[in-house]
């Protein structure tokens, strides 16, 4: 159940995600190839404003994107609609945002 606004939010967040996902994959490949340990990775990311912005925007975009995506699936599969569907959407988004924020802060802050 998508209106134009939700649609735009989902598609724009997807567009934002595209380079971020590529970036993340690159980091992973680099990390694994280099055989970096957790501490080594964290050593590079923690305290870096750039990594904070990178993963921060990833979390924001993915929360919006996934929450709306799940909303659609839930509506079409369970026929959930009305206020409960809104609660589900915003709830999912907020939970993802919150957990994502915790992860980002863990990885990028001191």
């Amino acid at each position, binding site marked *: *159940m*998508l*209106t*134009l*606004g*939700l649609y*735009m939010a989902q598609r724009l967040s997807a567009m934002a995600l595209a380079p971020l996902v590529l970036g993340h994959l690159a980091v992973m490949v680099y990390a694994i190839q280099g055989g970096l340990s957790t501490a080594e990775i964290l050593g590079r990311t923690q305290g870096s404003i750039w990594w904070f912005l990178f993963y921060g925007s990833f979390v924001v975009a993915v929360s919006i994107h996934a929450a709306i995506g799940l909303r*659609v699936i839930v509506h079409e599969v369970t*026929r959930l609609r009305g206020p409960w569907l809104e609660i589900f959407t915003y709830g999912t988004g907020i939970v993802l945002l919150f957990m994502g924020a915790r992860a980002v802060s863990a990885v990028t802050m001191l």
Partner: protein
Amino acid sequence: MTGMLEVSVWRGSGEEGAYESYQVPARENQTVLDVVSWIQQSVDPSLTYRYACRVGMCGSCAMMVNGQPRWTCRTHVKRVLERGGLRVGPLRNLPVIKDLAADMDPFFDKWVKAGGVHPPSRTRYQPIQPVRPDDPGRVEANKAIECINCSVCYAACDTVTGNPDYLGPAALQRAWTLFNDAKVQDRQAILDGVSGAGGCHNCHSQGSCTRFCPNELDPLSAIAGLKRASARSFLKQRRQEC
């Protein structure tokens, strides 16, 4: 072709019913509609189905044939036969009235709801608007002009199944045609009409509409066009507000 066809046909009204089997003589030139008609005329007079033009112009005769939506008056049996048999049911995604006849009202209600009615641009006392046939809008609008509102695409689309508000491919394609029609003045109204809860943005590009349209029309692309146009107008409006 000789011998018998093994045909199972949905019998029942409303939600209730079951498939029943019939033996139908096979013929050289025979459409699925002929098979269904033969059953009604020769063995089971109570069988209900719908047809009118019998040449693919009215869109009354669509049914599920071996699980796929088709116009039955122009579906040659040979093309769809599976292991010597056919399974014929009422169109998906619509309420069943009886046996093979579906209630098409929801389909047409959505057609109107999607704004599928041409808003008058001039009166009958004014000259007819000149439109060049190679005008790009006209070329685009022409693509869907053969739609016979048969509901085959509507029956094929799983988004319609999951999302009862979804206007569906045919109605949205009609809106896209109007959007491109040089005679229509208020384009924005058309976009607004397809941007609500059941609007074009719910389409997942499943493409079953385009795959099954018997007239080889392409609602998938038409809907993509609506998405593109509405996204553009969305961004433009935002920019103006800023």
